């Protein structure tokens, strides 16, 4: 008689390990397909700089463990400080330097995020905060000296809107809540 394997208290750790490994490999598989068909071999990118990317867990993955993480806050403060070192043409396409005022403004609000965003500079001198859960569940907030603009996609629903600097935290925390 065939028996169905179930997790329970009597299941030994050696029986569970293959399932864990399978789960991990599935997880990596899904993350590497966030871009469409890859036409050439893509090598797995490792988190190379422990100064900025010390944790292997995603910045924007939503879990209680990541809420108000001091490690990630410090990593983001290092990243945003490093953006001040970008000179003219930093991206090969005439990218503009990021102003020190903008960097300070964002640094000042970082500690208020429940979940730390990923931080990217843009070629037009603004800074983008990404809260990326998946291709269909993301929030991008672009902050420049001209203002703040957000793009949110949840499922098929897309929203684009201007906002004030003071509205960034509640909107981001609501998205991650």
């Amino acid at each position, binding site marked *: 008689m065939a028996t169905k394997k179930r997790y329970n208290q009597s299941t030994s750790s050696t029986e569970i390990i293959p399932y864990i490994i399978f789960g991990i490999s599935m997880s990596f598989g899904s*993350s*590497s397909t*966030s*871009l*469409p*068909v*890859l*036409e*050439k071999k*893509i*090598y*797995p*990118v490792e*988190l*190379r700089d422990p100064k900025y*990317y010390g944790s292997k867990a*995603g*910045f*924007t993955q939503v879990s209680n463990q990541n809420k108000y993480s001091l490690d990630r806050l410090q990593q983001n403060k290092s990243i945003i400080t490093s*953006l001040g070192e*970008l000179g003219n043409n*930093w*991206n*090969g*396409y*005439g*990218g*503009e330097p990021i102003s020190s005022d903008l960097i300070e403004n964002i640094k000042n609000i970082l500690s208020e995020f429940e979940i730390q965003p*990923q931080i*990217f*500079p*843009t*070629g*037009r*001198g*603004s800074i*983008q905060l*990404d809260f*990326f859960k998946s*291709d269909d569940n*993301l929030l*991008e907030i*672009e902050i420049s000296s001209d203002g703040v*603009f957000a*793009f949110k*996609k949840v499922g098929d629903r*897309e929203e*684009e809107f201007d906002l004030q600097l003071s509205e960034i935290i509640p909107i981001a925390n609501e998205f991650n809540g």
Partner: protein
Amino acid sequence: MNSTVNSDKKTETSLQITESVKEESQLSPEIKNHEYLYRGVVLNNWDLINNRISSAAFKDTGGASVDRDGGREESECIKNLLQVKDFKAICKIKAEIVRSYGAIILYKPIKSNIFHSEIHDSTERIQMRGSKPDKLRRSSLLVYINKD
């Protein structure tokens, strides 16, 4: 006032250069739908956590600069871009897809790069924001990545 005049003169000069380079390049001024547009991505715009390009990569002052393939082999397009900068990744997107999102593509050759082109938000606005950069990001195909 003077700066405005200088700026106008500069624009006029760059337009003249663009037009003369266009004539020299012998490429069709119109970018066909089947052409691919290539874009280099620096490490600062690469999402190390999710192995993806951030849409921030498509947010330049003058729209998004790209290189049209202009009938070249892909390997040549990649090689030319890597001569400009040590990019983390290079992606490509078909002109037809860009147009399907309502963005426009302009062929704007420069002396150092006769394949240089720009993706603008629309005829009214140059810089892209909101859903368009995100759509470009997700529709882009990675053709090169530096594993170092």
